[in-house]
């Protein structure tokens, strides 16, 4: 899949030659991401698939403006991440598997806090919080402190927090990591629901079944590079294998041999 095939107005996430290096006291200069290209359209679910240490998290952190790219460029909803990071942050909802909640705030207080940080005030803030309560079924536990919630309840509050400002782009970093089966199913349902809402969803995972079920397109990341990207059928055709696990192995084998 190349940029030429995607109408510019339809692209919600665009990355070109993204590079990220770190200075490490022990290892010296570490290249975590070595020139990643990707594009993700509105209403599309795009999965970044790769093993631990492949560079998925770093890529998503660059796209969500948490980390600054060492080289290359990226834009969210047409806004360059380097030039206007605050505007980019207004347009994204970000959630990772390791995201926590403030234990001593209630679900409602959490939503109000993050709503305020997104510039919502007064009636708009109240309406956004009520909408989140309705959408994610928070009425039964949303006024209890987060420290007293179950894993699934916390997950729902976390999702509600990430979309309290109704962002056009969702960036999810291994969103099901550490979740039990029920909470994980809730998350998968939520991601699927975003497709129909027209939201662009970019998420990383190393769980093949998740990628197979959810993704319109998949990008395979390994050693900081994007090895291949496309629909599952395109990847199968490219590698001559049937199962996603075999697709992945074949792409890694080619990369190691190159």
């Amino acid at each position: 899949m190349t940029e030429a095939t995607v109408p510019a107005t339809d692209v919600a996430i665009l990355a070109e030659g993204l590079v990220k290096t770190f200075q490490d006291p022990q290892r010296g200069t570490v290249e975590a991401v070595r020139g990643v290209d990707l594009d993700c359209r509105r209403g599309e679910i795009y999965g970044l698939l790769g093993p631990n240490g492949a560079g998925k998290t770093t890529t998503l952190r660059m796209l969500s403006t948490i980390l600054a790219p060492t080289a290359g460029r990226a834009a969210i909803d047409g806004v360059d991440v380097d030039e206007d990071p605050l505007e980019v942050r207004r347009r994204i909802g970000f959630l990772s598997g390791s995201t926590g909640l403030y234990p001593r705030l209630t679900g409602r207080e959490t939503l109000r806090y993050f709503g305020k940080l997104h510039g919502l005030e007064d009636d708009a803030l109240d309406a956004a919080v009520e909408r989140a309560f309705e959408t994610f079924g928070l009425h039964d536990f949303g006024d209890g402190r987060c420290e007293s919630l179950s894993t699934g309840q916390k997950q729902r509050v976390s999702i509600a927090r990430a979309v309290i400002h109704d962002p056009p782009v969702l960036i999810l970093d291994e969103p099901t990591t550490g979740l039990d089966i029920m909470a994980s199913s809730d998350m998968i349902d939520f991601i699927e629901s975003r497709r129909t809402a027209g939201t662009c969803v970019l998420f990383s995972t190393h769980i093949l079944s998740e990628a197979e079920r959810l993704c319109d397109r998949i990008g395979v990341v390994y050693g900081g590079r994007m090895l291949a990207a496309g629909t599952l059928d395109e990847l199968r055709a490219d590698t001559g294998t049937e199962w996603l696990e075999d697709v992945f192995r074949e792409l890694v084998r080619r990369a190691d041999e190159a």
Partner: protein
Amino acid sequence: MKTAFDVLGAELLQLARDRRALFSAILLPALLYPLLFWGMGKLEDVGRETMAERTVSARLDLAALGETMRDEFRGDLVERGPITIEDVDATAVRDAEEGEPRRLAARGALGLEGDGEGEETDDGADLLVVAEIEGEGADAQRATFELWYDVKSDDAREALSRARGALRDIEDRVATERRERLLGGDPATGLDPEVVDVATAEDTSGAALGKWLPFIVLLVLVSGAAYAALAVFAGEREAGTLETLLVQPVPHRSIAFGKFIAVFIAGAATLVVNLASLALCFGLGLADVDAFGGATGGLGLARLATLGIELPACLLLCALMCLACGGARTFREGQLLVFPVTLLVIVPTAIVLRPEAELTALWAVVPFAGTALALRDGLEGGLSLPLAALVVASHLGWTWLALTRLAGVLDAEKVLGGGGDAKAEAHLRQASGQHAVRWGFAVVMTVYLVAGSVQRWDLDAGLWFTFWILLPAFALAIAWTAPRAPGEKRDLAGAMGLRVPRIEHLVGALLVVPALARGAEALFEWQQKVLPLPPGAESSGLGLESVFGERGPLWLFFFFALSPGVFEELVFRGSLLSAMRRDWTLRKILFWQALYFALVHASIYRLLPTAILGALLTAVALRARSVFPAMVLHIAYNGLLVLGTTGHLDFVEADWFRYAPWLAVPGLLLLARPAKETTSGA
């Protein structure tokens, strides 16, 4: 600004619901003084019972009194406990001019010579009582008593207490007799006891509030602000909420500022609660305000207003706490980082314990030292307003500087490091850094408490124990317990920095020593102007001449150059440095090495020179990737200074010493050579 207030609101709400925050910011500072005074009261009761059994000595000049009163006073004193009484003629005291001449005369009559400690002669006394008869006509028999004593002596205070009791009894009797005999007279003025302390004005201030309040206030502040800073920075990072916060469409500096204000409010609340508790203790009579210097001029509103000078210190402390805790990746790591901040606060504040230290323009700008001295002077009623303004302005300036760096602590590059996938390696490195901090603290405290005690008991045994048992044991323990990756072999020699060095590094280390010694001399001369050594130790930079002057040069070289050079280096530039190198940046390593090396020497006078030396030795060891050049440098430097300052080696006047800076140039060039790549154990 709106964002900062939004963050502030959320942080305060969480702190208010956090029991540990409430305990450290409200409950602990509120209970501190009642518990302290209750404990002190109990100790005083026990002490009083013990003191009642002690034999004290008193010198009495009661010639002016009638025989009856003289015998009565003497008899009453004897009844109150074991006492040795000696009749003396205190005409010299009586005739001396009021003020300093009279105080010195009284010290002479007590057998105390000069103003130093430990100078009591063998036949000295604890109390001098000088009686006189004043008044004319009907009041011709009115007696006045001067009771001279030294507040620093337990026996003297006990003797004073007994004498006051005896005088009270006599006064009651005299008052009753007069009431019966005289009409219209004032029976309450039967006697006029006057208690006079022979201590110097500086010693008197030692008992005053101004001497210990700066410490208590800052320590209480540390308690309140530290937990808040840990909770809002390190706690947030550990809970996994910080990453979420950083992707919100608000500037990171606004988030950091909101958090800082929350920490400041927690710190200020701690301060207010603590001072209110103190006032309440005085108000309810739980503590005697006179005993804390209130008797000398009282503690009026104007003096108490000086406490306001602690506010800039509070701001600075909170900013430093935020900086320290903001750099921590976990709550636990944050707790370790609070320790150096606490030291940064306590060490400069210790200046108030030196009676000779005055609030000057230089001290005013030193963080925490300025506020401590200003608070002391203010409580004693002698604070200069321009200097107070300088203290406030400089502390606000330091705070501003700290705040400009605060937004940086939320820099995601530092907060999150690399990607989220290398956690095992990150945890190992983090554990290595924490290992260094914990063991460094253990070394400092053990040397200070254990080794110091053994050295005071027996100097030679203490030095053998410190250098040849304690420090090698620490070096081995630190290296042995250093965190390792699964499957990683234990390299004990490598972990202690015992790698074969380049010969150039050894020679280079030797060549820079004379220049360092010159630098030490210059530093000492400068420090004498700012913080003079106590009387008796000013003749040498290390204060060694007066103590060890009679020891031979070999003994001095062995215990003060060779032994510390080898074993201090093995611990600090060997085992600790290896643990620090695994994770920390150069700046962080230099800071902690300087801090621990300065602290282990446990002297405010040697704090700066040892900190600088510690950083230099660290730089040498890092460059050489071996502990041996640092050992050579340390031994030669100590040897030169110790033998020089004890008169065994006159290097300052030597011709070659003039060329010290020129020797340092090739020395530095040699040290600059890259280390050997091989890491074979020695």
